[in-house]
């Protein structure tokens, strides 16, 4: 053990810096203790108690900075000094690190990171709006994950942002990909030439995942929150997002994703495309009229998957006919599987239960299934007459969005915590009229990190419960995500298939398969 020391004169640092520097030095291998303190009488006495009071320190004054290191040998001590010096120098150069101390407010954070350009806000809605406004006033772009932000506040925020060239993504915006970085719930995608503006989180995820899986890439994916394209907000951010992508030299193709915007908003979008947007635009307005999209000057897609495939084809310079062929092939496959699966059912099994974690994915599934099996029940149904009396009790064909308030108050989102859905899976399996259980699995940052580990056993158990009663339940799954996602898409697919589920390549394909099985069994409306 050696004790070495250095005295620095005329250098002053705040207490947190000195503590962190000393602490970091002791973390080095072979360093037992370290101190970086002013040479006051009392500090010297602590150095003495710690066995680090060197002779050279004895005459030091209050304004001297004493650096003492107790290490296993000279060399280690020198390393520690070098590290301490480096850290103090960095501090003098005004590069500040938060270390173990977290700032308590936006202003505090800006002290540490004065060149920040984005704030992500996910605190309770009643405060989120004000925090967002503060951020905008500091010239920062905002990702507003929180929901329950009052409408008036959203309008105020977006008007201010528009006037100041800033982004407000939200409220209730769960996904965005900016400069290649996944914000909140987002997938790891390829970087490329396709830009997305989306008023739907899982819509953005599905489209960006399909694009990546097809070998094309995303330049920017801007979320606006669902309320943006409604009448009151008037599409402010949707429009600004489109303009930004038009100006961005790295974006060559633009995809628009949302539920059908309010007619006034749609008109603004259409006018913008006609007057200012020169880049090709693909539009998927779920449940909307494709002719409307066409007359707006965009290429219409009828599903999220299609929108992704069209954009990818454009980006890869391929003809749009190629993917059309692909979809035709797939339709054939789906019908074959549906045929097979409808033959292994017990009498009485004829309904589908869709248990969804992504709201837009649920909507898309309902839209597609409506064409095949008619109206379905749900907690957020397409037709209000088909609203479940009790969101927890399914009826005939039912599609449930487990991300809705009644399921999420006081608990984590179902994309993160599978407990609730797993419970529902077992319940539905006990219902003798159920033939198909339809599930979305959303990968990416912010989602459950081991979805296969948690979902596969529930699927297995559910099938066993049904088997004991002589019933075979078809589990149809889709995985929204890419191979680059932390959950490892391939692994998850295998786990689900091993548990007996059929994994389809997209949400649209999964919904169609489930619906055809039901149709074959006579469960259509």
């Amino acid at each position, binding site marked *: 053990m050696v004790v070495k020391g250095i005295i620095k004169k005329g250098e002053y640092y705040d207490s947190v810096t000195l503590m962190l520097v000393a602490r970091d030095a002791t973390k080095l291998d072979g360093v037992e203790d370290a101190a970086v303190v002013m040479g006051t009488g009392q500090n010297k006495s602590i150095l003495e108690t710690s066995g680090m009071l060197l002779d050279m320190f004895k005459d030091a004054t209050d304004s001297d900075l004493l650096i003492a290191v107790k290490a296993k040998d000279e060399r280690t001590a020198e390393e520690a000094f070098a590290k301490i010096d480096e850290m103090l120098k960095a501090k003098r150069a005004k590069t500040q690190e*938060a270390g173990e101390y*977290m*700032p*308590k*407010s*936006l202003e*505090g*954070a*800006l002290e*540490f*990171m004065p*060149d*920040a*350009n*984005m*704030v*992500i*806000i*996910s*605190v*309770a809605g009643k*405060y989120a709006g*004000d*925090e967002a406004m503060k*951020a905008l006033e500091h*010239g*920062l*772009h905002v990702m507003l*994950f*929180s929901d329950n932000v009052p409408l008036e506040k959203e309008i105020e925020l977006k008007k201010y942002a528009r006037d*100041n*060239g*800033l*982004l407000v993504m939200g409220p209730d915006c769960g996904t965005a990909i*900016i*400069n*290649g*970085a*996944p*914000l*909140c719930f*987002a997938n*790891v995608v390829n970087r490329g030439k396709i830009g997305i503006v989306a008023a739907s989180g899982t819509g953005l995820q599905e489209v960006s995942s399909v694009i990546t899986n097809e070998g094309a890439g995303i*330049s*920017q994916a801007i979320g606006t929150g669902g309320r943006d394209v409604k009448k009151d907000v008037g599409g402010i951010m949707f429009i*600004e*997002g489109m*303009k*930004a*992508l038009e*100006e*961005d030299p*790295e974006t060559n193709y633009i995809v628009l994703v949302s539920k059908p915007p309010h007619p006034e908003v749609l008109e603004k979008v259409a006018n913008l495309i006609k007057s200012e947007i020169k880049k090709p635009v693909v539009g998927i307005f779920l449940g909307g009229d494709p002719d409307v999209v066409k007359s707006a000057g965009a290429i219409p897609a009828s599903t999220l998957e299609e929108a992704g495939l069209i954009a990818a084809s454009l980006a890869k310079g391929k003809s749009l006919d190629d993917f059309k062929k692909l979809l035709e092939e797939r339709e054939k496959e789906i019908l074959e599987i549906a045929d097979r699966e409808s033959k292994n059912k017990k009498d009485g099994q004829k309904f589908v239960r869709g248990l969804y974690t992504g709201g837009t994915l649920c909507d898309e599934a309902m839209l597609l299934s409506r064409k095949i099996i008619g109206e379905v029940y749900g907690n957020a149904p397409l037709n209000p007459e088909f609203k479940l009396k009790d969101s927890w009790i399914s009826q005939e064909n039912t599609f449930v969005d487990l991300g809705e308030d009644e399921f999420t108050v006081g608990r984590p989102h179902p994309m993160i915590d599978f407990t609730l859905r797993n419970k529902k899976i077992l319940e539905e399996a006990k219902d003798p009229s159920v033939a198909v259980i339809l599930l979305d699995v959303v990968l990416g*940052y*912010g989602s459950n990190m081991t979805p296969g580990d948690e979902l596969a056993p529930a699927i297995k158990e559910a099938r066993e419960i049904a088997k004991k009663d002589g019933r075979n339940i078809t589990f149809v799954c889709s995985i929204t995500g890419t191979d680059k996602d*932390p959950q490892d898409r391939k692994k998850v697919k295998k786990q689900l298939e091993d548990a007996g589920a059929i994994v389809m390549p997209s949400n649209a394909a999964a919904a169609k398969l489930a619906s055809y099985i039901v149709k074959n069994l006579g469960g259509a409306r």
Partner: protein
Amino acid sequence: MRKISDLFKQELKVINIGLLSFKESLDDVGVKVIQVDWRPPAGGDEEVMDALKKLLGK
């Protein structure tokens, strides 16, 4: 006059106010992000009770 598209040319530097997992995912991909240990501002009794509950409940 600043534009949104200016952001696309900069290095993203993020301040995260709220759920820690959102910071962690950015850490993973190497984006500079700082976490704010946020508390509700001066507010009504509800927030105070919440604050006290957390402190007393420990």
